[in-house]
């Protein structure tokens, strides 16, 4: 006798496969969302650090830079969720000599930007940071 439709076992197997697929998809979506959030923070951090470096090259003080940047910044190495840590180290004069024998001096300043990695519950899982060395002319007039 020819049967119409699916048997219970077939339906259960199909439902199981679909459930596994949905579970994987849900997990993937969650991972993607976390990755997207991380990318978003990373992009904001990169743009923020570049803006800070440009402002520093213009002669603004670190405090003034933190004040006018569009994100909440502090000097902390462990900034709170949604904020950034931005530091400029002590500047040092670096004497350089080019291949033509002429010496010149530049000012070297390290800068580090730290940003928190946020978990699903909004808690800080870890911190990521980026460090750059800023070279400026040896003579920079201060800008208030």
């Amino acid at each position, binding site marked *: 006798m020819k049967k119409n439709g699916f048997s219970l076992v077939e339906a259960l197997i199909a439902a199981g496969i679909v459930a596994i697929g949905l579970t994987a*998809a849900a997990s*993937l979506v969650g991972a*993607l969302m976390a*990755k*997207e959030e*991380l*990318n978003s923070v*990373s*992009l904001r951090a*990169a*743009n923020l*650090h*570049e803006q800070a*470096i440009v402002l520093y*090259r213009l002669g603004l003080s670190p405090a003034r830079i933190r004040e006018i940047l569009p994100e909440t910044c502090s000097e902390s190495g462990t900034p709170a969720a949604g904020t950034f840590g931005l530091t400029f180290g002590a500047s040092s004069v670096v004497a*350089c*000599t*080019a*291949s*033509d*024998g*002429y*010496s*010149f*001096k*530049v000012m*070297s300043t390290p800068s580090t930007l730290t940003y928190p990695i946020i978990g699903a519950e909004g808690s800080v899982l870890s911190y990521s940071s*980026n460090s*750059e*060395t*800023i*070279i*400026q*002319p*040896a003579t920079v*007039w201060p800008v208030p």
Partner: protein
Amino acid sequence: MIFALVLMTVGVFVLAAVLQLAATQGVSGEAEWDALQRRVTLGNSRAMAREHLRSRLFHVPQATNNWPATFTNSSGGFSIQPAGAAHDNYWQALSVTDPDVVLNINPFNLMERGGFYREVFVGQLQQGANSVGWSFALRTRSPVAAGYSFVQHRPADNDLASLASPPYIDLNGTGEQFVGFPGMPRMPMASVTNTFTRGAGDSNGYQGFLDVREGASVYGLFTNAVYQAREPSNQTPRTLQVVLDLAAADPNVANSVLRYDATDNNASFTRGTNVYNLPVKAVVLSGSGNDRGGKPLHVVVPESNTNITGLVLSNNNARLAYFYRQKAVNNGVLFDVSSVNASSWRLGITMSQCDIQFDIGTLEITGGLRTDGGITYQGGSANFIPETDPGGLDFIADRMMWLEDYRAQQ
């Protein structure tokens, strides 16, 4: 069944697209840090290149070899060389030393003004692992030659403390009107000095304005046809003056300087076969009337001379003349500029660390005044109008110099 398969296929496609998008975003996020690194390195390289060019080109004299100049470290790097084939004359032109170097004198107009010189260097700036083509332009001009009639600026940092007074203008006798604002950054600049000669560089180098110097090969002595010393009948011997006659024929060289003996502050000059050495108190420039001909006359009163405290403009003058008073910070003189029987003068004046006092009646001066000292009008008025024919000032007039840079065209 078919519907289910189609649905699954579409679902797989959508899922694959979402995954691809997420992966792309991830790559983009990582690439942003690389881009930041490249841009920071490029900025570092630009700062290094500019400092190197400032170090090499703004100090004179400079060697003309060893190009290209290259430098690299972990923060950036550059490679620079002159754009033109003639590498050996740029620094002479910019350092006011060589009369044989002819500068590019742009015609006077409202956009470019006059008296520019430009030297272009090309180079590569490090940008991450790659490099970017970059151009550097060294430009210079004399404010007076450029048509600026009045330039007043802060004095050099090193000498401000010992300056009698900061720059000021007292136009009506009611008090000193200060230029700028309290706390204004001091403008680095060179004084008009006589401290360097060709082959021995000024240790201070470029500080905003290039030096005008005494004793260089560009200068020469006026002949006896030009010089004469006299004691005006209505003045005492202590106001002994030297008269430089701009109506006279050209001297033996294009530009001349009134020389002084540093040991006794006297003016020394030649008349006939005799060399005179006199305690001159003032320089009289006797004008050429309406005759614009003749080579420019340059008169430099050097730092070593503390006797000269006055300049007298006698008769009218249309011949280009330029008067320099080198720094007089140690003697605190108030340099007096007066006129006799004059209503129109063609004259550039540079006063260095020396307050100037105008007592000239009503006088129209075609040219300009540059000073880092005070200005007082004791009487009359000076009407400055721009110099529009700066030929002859190109390699002698004090000048500012600056460096421009820009990304090379691809």
